[in-house]
């Protein structure tokens, strides 16, 4: 499956991933409103369901999400970087309050409109074009002064607009490192042969793209049952061990001691 067809069901959008990108580019979806984490979670769910990792789509996905993340951070920080970073809880609350009040107003106005609409129930209008005799008259008189020449160039312009292909997402602002998943897989396996290690060790001095691809390689190894990994706390160290049941199917206990035992 191409990553383009990944079905998303998010707060601000539901539909395929490629449509989401298009809408963001056309500014019909505000990137600032989009929780990118939800997009990533949707992709992980999708991986879970499929039960296998297609490395090509995975790479494509990482690149696109990274691009979106960077775009979004630029949007959020543009112009007022300092202020945004130092926003006080009071300010944030005021801003939120203004938004909530706006939403409430229009929800109430919507109620009013719904009432008006219901009040007009049963009122129908005649939607019948004028009889042909009168329409012929229109044509007849149209070439006179009454017609008013319209500019046919208007039509050419419209076609020009419609021929316009949307820009493809520009990734030029991202340094494109060619990091292959195969290479990172080999790297991880090399480390595994020596026993447990931390993710930080595995990606020491690497750039962000390499870190991301290494994480994918790690996911792949996990799927294949070659590694176990754990992260005791959020943003903490990720400890990676050779898969326990590869060595000893009954050895379920994991942890540093166990890992050391194996390493020893």
């Amino acid at each position: 499956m191409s990553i383009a067809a990944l079905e998303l069901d998010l707060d601000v959008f539901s539909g395929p991933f490629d449509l989401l990108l298009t809408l963001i580019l056309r500014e019909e979806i505000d990137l600032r409103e989009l929780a990118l984490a939800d997009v990533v979670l949707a992709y992980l769910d999708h991986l879970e369901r499929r039960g296998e990792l297609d490395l090509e789509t995975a790479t494509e996905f990482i690149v696109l999400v990274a691009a979106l993340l960077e775009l979004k951070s630029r949007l959020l920080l543009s112009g007022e970087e300092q202020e945004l970073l130092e926003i006080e809880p009071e300010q944030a609350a005021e801003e939120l309050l203004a938004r909530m009040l706006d939403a409430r107003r229009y929800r109430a106005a919507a109620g009013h409109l719904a009432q008006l609409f219901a009040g007009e129930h049963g009122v129908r209008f005649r939607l019948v074009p004028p009889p042909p005799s009168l329409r012929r008259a229109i044509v007849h008189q149209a070439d006179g002064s009454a017609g008013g020449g319209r500019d046919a160039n208007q039509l050419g312009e419209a076609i020009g607009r419609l021929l316009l292909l949307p820009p493809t997402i520009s990734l030029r602002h991202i340094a494109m490192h060619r990091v292959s998943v195969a290479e990172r897989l080999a790297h991880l396996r090399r480390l595994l042969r020596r026993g447990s290690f931390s993710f930080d060790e595995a990606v020491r001095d690497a750039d962000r793209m390499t870190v991301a691809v290494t994480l994918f390689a790690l996911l792949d190894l996990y799927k294949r049952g070659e590694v176990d990994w754990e992260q005791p706390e959020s943003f903490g160290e990720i400890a990676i061990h050779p898969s326990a049941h590869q060595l000893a199917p009954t050895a379920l206990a994991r942890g540093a001691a166990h890992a050391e035992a194996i390493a020893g």
Partner: protein
Amino acid sequence: MSELAQVNAEAPATPHAAQPPSAQHEAQLPAAEHEAEQEVPALARTVEALLFLSSEPLGAGELAEATQAGEGAVRAALAVLAEQYAPGRRGITLRELGGGWTLASDPSTEDAARRLFSRPRAATLSPAQAETLAIVAYLQPVSRPEITRIRGVSADSAAATLLDRGLIEEAGHSQFGAVLYRTTTQFLKLFGLRDLDQLPDIARWDPTPEEQAELRERLLRAGEARGGAGAADS
């Protein structure tokens, strides 16, 4: 008037059946001699509304079904309306046409109607209307689903307005049953074109002139690439 007389004859129970209806004659009488008709009976009111809304003549059977009244009662209601809408009394007349009844404007008002409809209404086209008209002009005949695919959003309302203004018209059906549109003579006149060959060459506005494919194909491809907001909506 002979049809109307027949209506009455077929509905003997109405008070009008006894008097020969001759609105023409009555119009010459002082108002005091008319039956008081300001309050139209409920069934006649309903029949009046149905005739007003329908673009096609309605038969007594159809009217009876819709109003859930007897056909005799419907004919009586029609007789009441025939009297009220007798020629020369109002701007609208009730006519029997093609086995049914229909409301039509009185011929005496035709000059004013012609002036009304020949007025260039809303001098400018909305962007949606201009796009829809351009697609029809360059690709005709073209179906509504195709227009929607190219524009990425529904063109129904724009197409209806263009139809209303006599700039496009229906041109049969596609093999899949969708209505096809083409431009009208009115369109050519309004845009000062002798014929369709005089439509401006789009090369001037073509953003990717190097593309070789046929215009229709390119428009459809671009429309779909733009993402068919329609896809998200459906």
